[in-house]
C-alpha cells in the first residue's frame, strides 16, 4: 500500500521554459522519498520534463525555500523548486 504526497513544484529560468510552466501541484507515490527520486519521477512524466532534466546534474534544488542536495528527504515538505545555478549580483 502506498500513500501519495502532494507537493508544490516550482521551476525557474530555463528549467521553467523547457517544462513550459512555472509551478504545479503534484501527487507523488510514497516511494518517491528524496529529491533524486522526484527528479526521476518527473522525467517519466513527459518529453518536456525529460528534456529539462537531460543535464539534470547541473540543476539545483530547494526544499521549502532552502538549498537542498539530491539526498534531501521529502517527508513533511510542501514546496520543491528546480533551477539552474544562480546568476544574480
Amino acid at each position, binding site marked *: 500500500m502506498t500513500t501519495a504526497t502532494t507537493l508544490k513544484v516550482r521551476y525557474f529560468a530555463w528549467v521553467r521554459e523547457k517544462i513550459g510552466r512555472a509551478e504545479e501541484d503534484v501527487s507523488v507515490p510514497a516511494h518517491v522519498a528524496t529529491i533524486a527520486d522526484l527528479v526521476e519521477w518527473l522525467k517519466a512524466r513527459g518529453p518536456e520534463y525529460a528534456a529539462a532534466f537531460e543535464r539534470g546534474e547541473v540543476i539545483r534544488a*530547494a526544499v521549502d*525555500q532552502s538549498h537542498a542536495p539530491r539526498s534531501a528527504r521529502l517527508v513533511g515538505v510542501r514546496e520543491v*523548486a528546480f533551477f*539552474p545555478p*544562480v*546568476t*544574480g549580483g
Partner: protein
Amino acid sequence: MAVRVQAEDFDIGAEVKALAGDTDIGAIVTFTGTVRGTAHGEVITRLSLEHYPGMTEAELARVEAEARARWPLKASLIVHRTGELAPGDNIVLVVAASAHRHAAFEAAAFLMDYLKTRAPFWKKETGHSGPGHWVDARDGDTAALARWEADPRP
C-alpha cells in the same frame, strides 16, 4: 540589517545616508553592480532578472546574518533589483559599515561572493536579435567562495 528585493532603482547616496548617523561607524563600503552593454563581444539591449520570491529574501537574510557573525558590522544592507533592466542600470547594492575599513571591505566582498552563488536570481541577456539567452554561472564565482571557506573567521 536589511535586505530588499525590488523592481525600482536605488540611490546609493540616500541608502548610505539612511544607514549613517551612528558615530561608532568609521568606514562604509558600498558595492554597486550594473548592467554592462556587451557580453562575450555581443551588444546587450536588455537584461531580465528572474527570482524566486520568498526564497530570495530568505537567502539574502542568511547571507547577511553570516557576514554579521564574521565581522563587527555596525550596519549592512543588500538591495537587489528584478525585472527588465537596460545597460547602465543598477542591479545590486551591498553596503557594509564598521568601525574600521578592513572589516567593511571584507564584509562587502563576502556579501557579494555569497549572494552570487546562493541567492536565487537568474539573468537573461537579450541582444538586437534572437530570443535572448540565460547567463551561465561563472566558475570564478564558486572559486571566490574558497577564501571564505578556508578562513571561516578572519
